[in-house]
């Protein structure tokens, strides 16, 4: 089994996710980018688990998926509230904690 392809794919997904988090202004898209990062990590876990022939990787991936679901739930709720209050989900405008 070749590990490289999975790792490369995972790295590409991670990089796309990071770009999304940093560059996109839409809150929902930022959340989706976070999902991408998490899934890139999941892919790494599963790939290494298969490579090492243990179930540890899949188990951790399952945990991450569960936590990611919860996180998205919270994140989407926050975005929804933001929209209700400000009629916008542009993250660059939310800077009340500026020092």
């Amino acid at each position, binding site marked *: 089994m070749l590990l490289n392809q999975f790792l490369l794919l995972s790295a590409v997904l991670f990089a796309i996710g*990071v770009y999304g*988090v*940093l*560059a996109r202004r839409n809150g929902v898209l*930022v959340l989706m980018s976070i999902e991408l990062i998490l899934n890139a990590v999941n892919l790494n876990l599963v790939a290494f688990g298969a490579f090492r022939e243990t179930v540890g990787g899949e188990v951790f991936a399952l945990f991450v998926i569960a936590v990611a679901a919860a996180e998205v739930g919270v994140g989407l709720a926050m975005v929804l509230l933001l929209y209700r209050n400000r009629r916008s989900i542009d*993250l*660059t405008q*939310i*800077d*009340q*904690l*500026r*020092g």
Partner: protein
Amino acid sequence: MTELFTIAASTDGGGLALGITEGGNWFLRNVWLIPLLPALSFVGILFFGKRMPRGGSELGVASLGIAFLLAVVTGAAWVDHRDDYHGEEVYRAVVVHDAHADAHADDHGGGHGHPSLAVHRTATWFQTNGVEFTVGTLVDGPAVMMLLVVTLVSLLVHVYSTDYVHGDRRYTHFFAFLSLFSASMLLLVVSENTLQLLCAWELVGVCSFVLIGHWWEEKPNSDAALKAFLTNRVGDMGLLVGVTVLFFAVGSALPDRFGSFSIAETNALASSGALSHTTLLIASCCLMAAVMSKSGQFFLHTWLPDAMAGPTPVSALIHAATMVVAGVFMIARMYGVFFEGFQIDGSSINLMAFIGGLTTIVGACLAFVQRDIKKVLAYSTISQLGYMVMALGVGAWTAAMFHLFTHAFFKACLFLGSGSVSHAVHSFDMKSDMGGLRKHMPHTYRTFMIGTVALAGLPPLAGFWSKDEILVGTGGWGLLGGTGGNGAYTLMLGMGMLTAALTAAYMTRCVYLTFFGEFRGHGQPHESGPRITVPLWILAGLAVVAGFMNLPKGFQMAPGSFQERFGHFVEPVAGYFPAISHGTPSWSLAVVSTLVVVGGIAAAGWYYFVKVEAASKTAGTSLTELPDGPTTKYPLARMGHTLLANKYYLDHLYNGVVVDGTKGPVARFAYRINQQVIDRTVDLVGETAVKAGVTVYEKVDQLVVDGAVNASGSASSATGEELRKINSGKVQSYAAILFAAATVLAGVLIVIV
């Protein structure tokens, strides 16, 4: 020249025999119980006395009673021990400088037969730098004798005081210090080393200060207490120096020790010739200063008559029977040192004998001009203490101890008698408030007469025997036998004879003024209660019989087994005691001294009982002196009287010349020092401090401290100003920093690992 070698310690004759033993009867080994009892009583009275039904006096009486019983048992144990103990003697290795001293050490103590080993017991007191200081007891003849005397007189004084100071505002306090005084004196008596002796000595001094100043609300009393204390300080300095000198001197003679306070070692070394004569002379002179202040020797005696300001039982206890004899006892204890230091053997005069002899005459003369009955007795005490010191000075050790023993009884009797009189007439003034008391106070009169006759030294009362022995001890009676003392102290014999006459005369005067003629005071005097008269009778009884304890050797009227019992049991025959020779008693000396006494009584009796009595009859009132007596008729007699009335101007000398002479210049000097040195220094220090403060404020505080604080403040402010730009509030910029940092850290991780 002198070869230095060490004799190894062993028990078969090698080393220096100290004349002490670690064994012995239980009572002799545990004699520390005797001082402990009154000490406990002191603490008990102090804390619980006020709550007791009799104000703590019962505790004092009980503790002294038990202590007296213990002392009696100890005395019995000593009598047994003296003759029948054959235990192991303690030897000490010493550094010997030449063979001569070695031989001297070996022959010492040999001629007296079986040595009377003193019972020695020590415990470690404290240790510093490997030098061990001990406390302990050294029980021998004089210690046992003193234990008996002190406990007995103290017990009687305690009983007497329960009546005498009854209702006093500091009744409890009085008994507490009476107990402490007894405890310190008992501690002094059994002290094993000079350091312990010094502590007890100071304790005795403090107690005397407290008790003399018992009624301190009146200025003369507190002045008297201060005078006693300060005069004693003068001598205590000598004691301190003497003890220190001996400590190092003994240390230089012991190979394994740095120094030693041990009395037995000091005396044994002094007697063996291992210590240099110069050292011993210096030490003796220093110790002599202590004796002069404590035992009221001329010219430091001035505190003793003033000390009569204290309550009379205190005078009896402290200034007749016990405290003032501490000095005499100290000489007796350190006799090895004095014997060698003053070279008592084979000379005809020395400092101690001369001071003693002078004191007897000086004190006796002063007793003639006193109005105060207690002061007569006080000067008489000075005179008798001089007798004891003189006896020690001429080498009549046993006679001195014996005189101490008998004097304790008859002088305590006289003091308590004078207290009884003053209790009745509320005054001490013989001339204005007494007279004719023999009818009103029969018990006091009889006991006082017995005490007087004993003090005057008429046979067969106690004073005769001890005084006679002292006169014998001078060894100066070459004409009619009575020779063989330690030297030819003819001058001392003369002084002793003169004092015997003077003593008889002034006591006759005192008795006449107090008990004969007509009552000159106010009110109706009455006899004191049993708690006063019973102790008086006990002491009077002892004053009669105490003399029989040391009948002279070769006395034809008594069997040999009754002769010299006191000397046999009290005088140590041991390594730590010098080999003194004893004078041979003679009938002629006894007869002459008795005639001298009778002459003194006759002269004073003729003046008072015949002339003054007759003059009183003609005048119709009770006179105390002739209106045209010798002091009015002869200028020389008047001058003498003035001199005596002013106490030889010694107080003027001390207060006017010594005290004022030092006080003025010292005060001026101190003022100048104060103004010019201390004040200037203080000013200078102050100004410098201000300058330094300004400098510190400007340079250090403002620049360094404030600068540092301000700089740190502005630095953090500037940093914050910069850092707040990062804190944009934008989530994505945070995330960017996060990722950038993570990347950098990951890169670092890769590079390092």
